[in-house]
C-alpha cells in the first residue's frame, strides 16, 4: 500500500552542493522509518524532497506506487510536521487542526467533528479554544501531529520531532509517538541527528553521510553490526572501540598487545585491519582466562548509572569497556578483556567497510 519508493534521487542546490546524491530507498507501508546522520548529511533535504518542498534534480519519488516527483507538495498526499511545529499563532488549536480541511473548503460542521475526534486521539481535549502560545511544548507538538493527521495524508513526515522538547519531556513524547504511529499504522519517515532516538523509535534506520546512504537496517543490525567505521562511530551512546590490528592464525586478531577471537573468513593472516568492538560487548575480568584476551590496567572509571565505562590501557592504547556498577574495578588494577567471536568486527583499513561475512549475532 502506501509505501515510498525512491530511485536514484538527487537534490542539487543552485550552488552545486549535492545534498542528496543518488539515493535508492524503499519504505514499506506502515513502517516507522528513521533518517539518521550528522548535521549537513542531507537527511532533512531528503525529507523535504519527499515532501516536495525541494525539487528533485534527478531520480523519482513514488508514493503508493504513484510517481509524485513533479507534483506540488499539496497534491502528494503527504503530511509534514516541522521542527518548530509551524502552528499558526493567530488561530485556536481547533482552527489549527482543521486548517487543512478549511483549505479544501470542507463544511464547518465536519471540521468541528474532525477537531473533536482528532483532539481526543491526541489527548488535547479541553484545549481546543486555546492559542498555541498558551500551550506547553509537548501540547504544541501534539497539535501539530493532530493537524498532520487531520490532513489525511498517506505518509507522515516528521522533521526532528523531539528536538524542540526538553530532556524530560522528550522521553515521554518518544513513547507517545511510537505508540501513536503503531495505532495509526501510517507510513512515517522522521529525521533525527540523535542516534538514541532513531534506535528507540524506528523499525528501520537509514544512516546517511554527505548525501549518501551508509547503512540501512533495523536498529539492532545498525547497532550490533555497523556496515562501516562511520556508522560504527556514529551509533551508540558510548563510542565503539576502533583499533588497528592484524589478522592472526586460528581465528583471532592481535590488537593492543593481546588478541581477540574473530571470524576472519577469507581475510589472509597478517593483513592489517581495523577492529571494532563495542564497550558493551567486551567482558572485563580479573585474573587469568583461557582463550584470546587483552591484558591492561584500569585508567579511569566513569559512572553511567547502572553501568560504568572503564577505560583500560593496553599496550599504550585506551580501550573502553562497560561493566555493571557493582563490578567497577579500582584504578590501576590489572584486568583482562575478552569478547565473543561474533561481537568482534573487522573493517578494511583503507575504506572502513565491514570485512568478512561473519555470522549474525544471536539475540
Amino acid at each position, binding site marked *: 500500500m502506501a509505501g515510498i519508493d525512491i530511485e536514484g534521487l538527487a537534490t542539487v542546490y543552485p550552488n552545486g552542493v549535492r545534498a542528496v546524491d543518488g539515493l535508492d530507498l524503499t519504505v514499506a507501508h506502515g513502517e516507522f522509518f528513521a533518517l539518521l546522520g550528522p548535521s549537513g548529511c542531507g537527511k532533512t533535504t531528503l525529507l523535504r524532497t519527499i515532501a516536495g*518542498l525541494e525539487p528533485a534534480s534527478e531520480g523519482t519519488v513514488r508514493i503508493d506506487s504513484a510517481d509524485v516527483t513533479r507534483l506540488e*507538495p499539496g497534491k502528494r498526499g*503527504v503530511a*509534514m510536521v516541522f521542527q518548530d511545529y*509551524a502552528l*499558526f499563532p493567530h488561530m485556536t488549536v481547533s482552527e489549527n487542526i482543521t*486548517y487543512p480541511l478549511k483549505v479544501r473548503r470542507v463544511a464547518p460542521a465536519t471540521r468541528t467533528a474532525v477537531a473533536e475526534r482528532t483532539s481526543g486521539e491526541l489527548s488535547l481535549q479541553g484545549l481546543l479554544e486555546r492559542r498555541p502560545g498558551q500551550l506547553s511544548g509537548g501540547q504544541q507538538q501534539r497539535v501539530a501531529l493532530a493537524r498532520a493527521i487531520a490532513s489525511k495524508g498517506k505518509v507522515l513526515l516528521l522533521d526532528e520531532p523531539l528536538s524542540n522538547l526538553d530532556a524530560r519531556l522528550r522521553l515521554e513524547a518518544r513513547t507517545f509517538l511510537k505508540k501513536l504511529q503503531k495505532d495509526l499504522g501510517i507510513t512515517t519517515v522522521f529525521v533525527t541527528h540523535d542516534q538514541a532516538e532513531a534506535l528507540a523509535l524506528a523499525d528501520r534506520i537509514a544512516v546517511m553521510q554527505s548525501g549518501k546512504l551508509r547503512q540501512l537496517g533495523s536498529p539492532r543490525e545498525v547497532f550490533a553490526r555497523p556496515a562501516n567505521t562511520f556508522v560504527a562511530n556514529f551509533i551508540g551512546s558510548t563510542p565503539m572501540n576502533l583499533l588497528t590490528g592484524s589478522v592472526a592464525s586460528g581465528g583471532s586478531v592481535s590488537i593492543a598487545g593481546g588478541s581477540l577471537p574473530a571470524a576472519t573468513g577469507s581475510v589472509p593472516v597478517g593483513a592489517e585491519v581495523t577492529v571494532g568492538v563495542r564497550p558493551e560487548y567486551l567482558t572485563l575480568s580479573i585474573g587469568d582466562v583461557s582463550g584470546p584476551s587483552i591484558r591492561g590496567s584500569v585508567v579511569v572509571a566513569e559512572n553511567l548509572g547502572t553501568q560504568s565505562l572503564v577505560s583500560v590501557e593496553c599496550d599504550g592504547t585506551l580501550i573502553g569497556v562497560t561493566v555493571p556498577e557493582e563490578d567497577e574495578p579500582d584504578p590501576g588494577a590489572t584486568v583482562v578483556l575478552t569478547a565473543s567471536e561474533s561481537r568482534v568486527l573487522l573493517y578494511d583499513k583503507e575504506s572502513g567497510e565491514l570485512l568478512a561475512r561473519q555470522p549474525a549475532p544471536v539475540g
Partner: protein
Amino acid sequence: MATTTEPAPVQPARVRGPAQDVAGLGISRALGFVAPALLLIGAFLVFPAVWTIYIGITNYRLTGVEAVSPSIVGLSNYTKALNDALFHNALWLTCLFVLGSAVIGQNILGFALAWTMRRARPAVRRTVEALVLLAWILPSTVVAYLWIAFFDRDTGTLNSILGTQGTAWLIDYPMVCLVLFNTWRGTAFSMMLYSSALQAVPPSQLESARMFGASGWQTVRDVVFPHIRGHVLTNTLLISLWTANDFSPFLLTKGGPNHESETVPVYIYNVALQGGELGYSSAISFLLLIANLLVALLYLRLLRRRS
C-alpha cells in the same frame, strides 16, 4: 559611645555623585547638546505652525490694506470653509486621491511586488528594487516633468503607445492620471516595508500551508496577513498622511481643469497665492491638520485593538 552598636544609616548620595542618566552627562550638559536641534525645530516647525493657527483667525491677505494691518476675525474663516463648495470639492478629491493611490494603489502594488520578489533570483530582485526606488528618490519636479511628457496630448508617450493621438489625458482624466502618477511614485516605500515584514513570517508556516495545498491567496489571507497586520496598518497610516499632504499634483495639473483635480494642498496654495487670502488658506491648513490627526487616531485605535 558604646551605648549603640547599630551602624549609622547610610546617607543617600546627595553630594555630587555620578550623574543618574545612562550617558553620565547630567541634565544641564544634556540640554546643551539638544539645544541647537530644539532651536531649529522651534524656529522652522513650531513657530510657523503656531503662526498659521494665528493668521487663520485673521483676515490677513497677500496684498492690500489687510496685508499691512490684518484684523482678527474670529472663526469666520472656518465658517466660510464649511460652506465653501470648492473646499468640499477639494476634500472629496483628496479622499479619492488617498484611497486610490495610497490605500489601494501603493499598498497593493507594494505588497504584490514584495511577495513576488521574495523568491526571485537576487539579480532580478535587486534590479526591480532599484527601479522602484528610483521613482521614489527622484525630485518631484523631475518626475512631474516625465509624467507630463508621458501624458502629453500632442507628443506624449502614452498616446504613441496606444495610438490615441490627440487625447489630452491630463485634461480629460485628471484624477485618474494623478492616482496612477502617485501610485507609481510612492510604491517603493510600501514594497520595502512589506519586504522586511515578510521576513518576519516563519518559513515553516508558509511551507506548512503549502503542504496542505493552500493556494497563494489562501496563504496570504490565512498565514501571511495575520503576521503582518501591524505593518499593514502602519504603512497605510504613513502613506495616507503623506498622500493627503502631497503637493506634487499641482506640478501636473495645477488643480485644473476647472478644479477637477484640486486636492486640499493644491487648493490651499491656490487660495493663498492666486487668491491672496492668506488668512483663509491658513484656516484650511489647520482643518487639514485636524483631518490628518483624526485619521491617525483611527489607525492607532485599530493598531491597538489587535493585541
